[in-house]
């Protein structure tokens, strides 16, 4: 890395201050150190200039998913975004995630995501697991490495909800009551691919989940700090499974229905509204 790329020096930040009723970008000047990240700068401003600035953070190691914000217009983890990677000749804008209601300043109310999550039936083992192959005498589940590999990518999710934030269905069209969003499409995909799971969630993925609204424009994949291939490895495979069930003329002719033997999940209790 070149010397200038590491450089600190004076920088100007424009931080969104406000709440549900409205807000504005407020200018702050500060002296930065080499290697600083946006969160450092924001916390320094909070310490020295604006003690009432609300910001949520926790691990400062890109692992807790708390410090999601929009830096120069793009969803980013503040703790993972270095100042020297942002154009030096312009102020840095820091705004809260736009897809969720702001509580104050950079803190948004992401509880809608937890309500969506509650609508998904968790892992429920199939009834007829083969003893010694799928379950041992102690009642522990047995799974081959080949089968866990595909799902383990989805386990990397830190629930930063930036994929939800950037998804235009939620962000622009505000269809929070019609689409669960990429993070939960992924959770449902991981359950649907589970070899020991016994619940058929495909109708939910298609109907209440609203996967048909996703137009695979991949912004979720672009912003995911964990580099999860949300669209290619979770959403498209689920779209294909729904094609198997609902659209494929050949399979219809042959009368082949996938997910045979899986139970329907209990009816959902609510449509999560924002």
């Amino acid at each position, binding site marked *: 890395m070149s010397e200038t790329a590491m450089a600190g020096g004076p920088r100007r930040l424009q931080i*969104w201050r406000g*709440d*549900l009723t*409205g*807000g*504005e*970008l407020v200018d702050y000047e500060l002296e930065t150190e080499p290697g600083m990240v946006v969160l450092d700068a924001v916390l320094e401003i909070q310490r020295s200039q604006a003690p009432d600035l609300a910001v949520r953070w926790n691990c400062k190691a890109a692992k807790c998913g708390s410090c999601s914000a*929009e830096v*120069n*217009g*793009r*969803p980013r983890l503040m703790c993972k975004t270095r100042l020297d990677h942002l*154009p030096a000749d*312009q102020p840095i*804008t820091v*705004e809260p995630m*736009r897809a969720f209601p*702001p509580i104050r300043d950079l803190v948004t109310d992401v509880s809608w995501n937890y309500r969506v999550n509650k609508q998904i039936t968790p892992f429920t083992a199939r009834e007829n697991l083969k003893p010694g192959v799928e379950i041992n005498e102690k009642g522990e589940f047995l799974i*081959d490495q*080949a*089968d866990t590999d*595909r799902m383990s990518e989805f386990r990397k999710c830190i629930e930063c909800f930036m994929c939800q934030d*950037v998804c*235009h*269905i939620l*962000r*622009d*069209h*505000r269809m929070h009551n019609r689409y669960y969003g990429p993070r939960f499409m992924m959770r449902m995909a991981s359950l*649907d*691919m*589970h*070899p020991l*799971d016994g619940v058929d969630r495909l109708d939910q993925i298609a109907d209440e989940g*609203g996967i*048909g*609204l*996703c*137009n*695979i*424009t*991949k*912004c979720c994949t*672009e*912003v995911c700090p964990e580099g999860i291939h949300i*669209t*290619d490895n979770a959403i*498209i*495979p689920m*779209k*294909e*499974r*729904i*094609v*198997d069930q609902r*659209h*494929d*003329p*050949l399979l219809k002719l042959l009368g082949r229905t*996938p997910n045979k033997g899986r139970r329907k999940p209990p009816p959902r209790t609510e449509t999560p509204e924002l």
Partner: protein
Amino acid sequence: MTTVATPPRRFGATMRRDRWWVQPVLVVTSLTLFGVYTIIHAIVSKYYAITAGGAHLQSPMFSPDLPGIIQFHTSLPWAFLVLWAPLGLRSTCYYYRKSYYRSFFLAPPSCAVAGVARRKYTGETKFPLVLNNMHRVFFYFAVIVIGFLWYDAIRGLFYHGSFGIGVGNAIMFINVFCLSAFTFGCNSWRHLIGGKLNCFSCTPTAQTRHSAWKKVSILNGHHMQWAWISMFTVWGTDVYIWLVSSGAFSDPHHVF
């Protein structure tokens, strides 16, 4: 500057500072030019094969060679009878869908950039876009076309029955290779070959399908690149054949 908490619905509204519009502009330009060029050549319906000196190099836009193979002769632009399969594959392809939804439909034009305001957004749930779910059907037909393209490339190596090799042959092989890499990296194919299974380890067949799935996944990881590369190789091959067969220059080759 006062901003509202929810993003403004004005088209193009964004706080992004980078040149996010470059990509949509490039996509619109190249897809439009490719589409227009293909339609023009299909309508012209001439100069699609190099036949001088016993050669037979058939343009991929005119394959399978209906007049040659099944003696289907017409003065109408017959290429449309074969073009629908590869063009259908491309226009329902998950990658191309992404690129035209972004660049032509502006839904969204780029990430965190507001798209054009729509009264009601329905994604791929309503006619006609719901038909994109028929992608795998186009895949089946496109695979048949790929078979003919390999046949064309191999046939091109024989000049009046004797083996020969030249620039045109190389172009044909590069093109069919790239097209195969594109076609067999298809997301629907990835699903059908193994992605639809929940248990990769349960049966020997499932294990075989798992290893096939892994290979397709590698190609699929570069599906966008192969989509563009193969589009340009098809285009380039066709231009080359058009130029040579119309007499602009001759195809350098050596017959053994």
